[in-house]
């Protein structure tokens, strides 16, 4: 497996009246062909801005810097606006949280789907329509021809998200970036959409970057995950490894917050992470998580904490050694 997307030291800075906001700091990760990477974190951790930064869709005043964003060997940081526009919707598809706001209300579904292909490929409208019909069927929409003539408001939320998925598939992308694709949907529909994405991904050999706050989704969908906190990746690795033995106190905290049926005792106190996320305006001295960390000590406040790589895939951003981290966590659990 070779890396389809390799991000090295990506930063986003946004100048504000109060100072410079650093919503994304020193992000390094990669996604292989056909693989699923989940970026997980709470609101404001920078996960959505990361996806926008990859595709050069950041707000105007935001500044993107970094060593490189290699997509299939080419550096996206060096591409012109025109070249990026050729890439978006073509080799890289994007799916956003609220399908109603990402579909244009004044055009039919068919029109918008065809547009996608007409923009990037030399095809006739009829050929584009054929592909749109095929893909609508592919995403499980009955009566595709009728749906193509409908407007977004005539569809339910689940159907709209299926349309969005079909639309991103129009040009056969190598990578799909999905930002909270199922957050606005009901649980039953959520499972259907995720299943659909996984099936299509397998069939067309696409890589997927899925951005979510839901650890349940991560566990079921991801090959790898990256946990973000206050603009930084604090832990990454294979999903089994990270869920099996989380090394960063934040990852452990997150996992303890959600009740797991059959494992968490009913009615028992759930874990929690006291405190709030630090402001990301200006530089934060030391570890970003130290104010909320049960294990923080003096050294945590000094200098920046680097991402420590354990092997090719696994890395975490903490001063404690892996064995220390696990031992301290067990100690804490016993004390409670």
């Amino acid at each position, binding site marked *: 497996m070779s890396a389809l997307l390799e991000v090295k030291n990506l930063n986003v800075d946004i100048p504000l009246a109060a100072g410079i906001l650093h919503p994304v700091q020193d992000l390094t990760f990669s996604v292989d062909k056909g693989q699923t990477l989940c970026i997980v974190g709470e609101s404001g951790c920078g996960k959505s801005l990361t996806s926008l930064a990859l595709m050069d869709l950041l707000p105007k005043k935001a500044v993107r810097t970094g060593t490189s964003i290699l997509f299939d060997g080419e550096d996206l940081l060096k591409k012109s606006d025109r070249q990026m526009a050729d890439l978006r919707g073509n080799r890289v598809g994007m799916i956003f949280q609220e399908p109603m706001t990402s579909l244009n209300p004044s055009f039919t579904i068919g029109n918008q789907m065809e547009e996608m292909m007409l923009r990037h490929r030399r095809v006739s409208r009829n050929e584009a329509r054929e592909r749109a019909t095929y893909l609508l069927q592919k995403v499980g929409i009955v009566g595709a021809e009728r749906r193509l003539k409908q407007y977004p408001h005539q569809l339910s939320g689940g159907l709209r998200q299926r349309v969005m998925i079909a639309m991103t598939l129009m040009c056969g992308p190598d990578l799909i970036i999905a930002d909270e694709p199922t957050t606005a949907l009901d649980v039953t529909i959520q499972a259907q959409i995720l299943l659909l994405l996984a099936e299509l991904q397998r069939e067309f050999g696409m890589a997927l970057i899925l951005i979510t*706050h839901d650890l*349940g989704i991560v566990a079921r969908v991801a090959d790898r995950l990256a946990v973000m906190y206050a603009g930084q990746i604090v832990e990454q690795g294979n999903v089994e490894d990270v869920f099996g033995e989380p090394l960063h106190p934040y990852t452990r905290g997150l996992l303890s917050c*959600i009740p797991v*049926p059959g494992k968490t005792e009913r009615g028992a*106190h*759930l874990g*929690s992470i006291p405190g709030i996320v630090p402001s990301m305006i200006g530089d934060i001295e030391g570890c970003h998580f130290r104010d909320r960390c049960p294990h923080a000590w003096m050294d945590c406040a000094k200098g920046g904490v680097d991402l420590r790589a354990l092997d090719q895939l696994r890395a975490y951003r903490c001063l404690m050694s892996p064995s220390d981290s696990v031992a301290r966590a067990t100690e804490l659990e016993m004390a409670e």
Partner: protein
Amino acid sequence: MTGALLETFDVTRSFAVGAGIFSQKQMLKAVNGVSLRVNKGDVLGLVGESGCGKSTLALMLLGLLPASSGSILFDGKPVSHLPRLELARRIQPIFQDPYSSLNPRKSIGDIISLPLRVHGASTAAERQRKVDEIMELVGLPQRYITNYPSQLSGGQRQRVAIARALIMRPEIVICDEPTSALDVSVQSQILNLLMDLRQELGLTYILISHNLAIVEHIATRVSVMYLGRIVEEKETEALFRRAEHPYTQALLASVLTPEPGLGIPDAQLGVEFPNPMDPPAGCTFHPRCPHAAVVCSRKAPRPVPRGTAGFTECHIYDEAESVSFKSAAA
């Protein structure tokens, strides 16, 4: 009938929608014949997908929306006959979004003490004492008293909403998706708080949520709603151990627990959620049901008692219809 604090009998609520120049008014039955019973000390979980009528039901229970038919009894008296103030003192809501449910122009102290002023039975000093007391109880530092909602985080705002709901010491609190707008780490804090408060103040909750993991964790009884009706109701443990209604089974199967390696479940539900304006004939769930038989599209199922104090509204469990289903129930 002792112990029941809140009871509804065959409650229905219809809305007239879609009246235009060329189109006729259509009736949407948001809640269609719901009977439920909440005992003192219960935590009743009300689950179902969006549009199933759970929030409409909540509004009726709060007395904010009159029922089209049927009756709602609070402590044995019809809700519609209770004085507005008395009802507001004894039943309080906590809503989903602490960003829109708090007045941005009022300070935290004003927001929390407003119910005291509305009920008018206390002096300024007494109000102050009660506000201090409740803020401590919900874990809000005293210094926030002069702050405005915009200066607080989501979790703290939800604590303010809880403090406001509890200051008159109500008997029932109706929590409509109390943690859906919050981050997971904050969600667990609010859930812990709700559980503690229930212990300390002897509260009864109706917890409306689409998050089944949360419902399983804190509810004592669970009602599953589908298209305006309760299709299954049981003690929490019984329901999660053995869900009987095919819709409940699908809902439970769709929950993504944080356990890697299990893959994405296939609940085998069709794509289309039925149009609530034109609900399917017979059992409203039959077009999506993997076990549907002929009878399901013809005849509406009746609630079949199951176990102790539970029921499932499905033909599969109805002895009278059992011929139609040989294997499904097993």
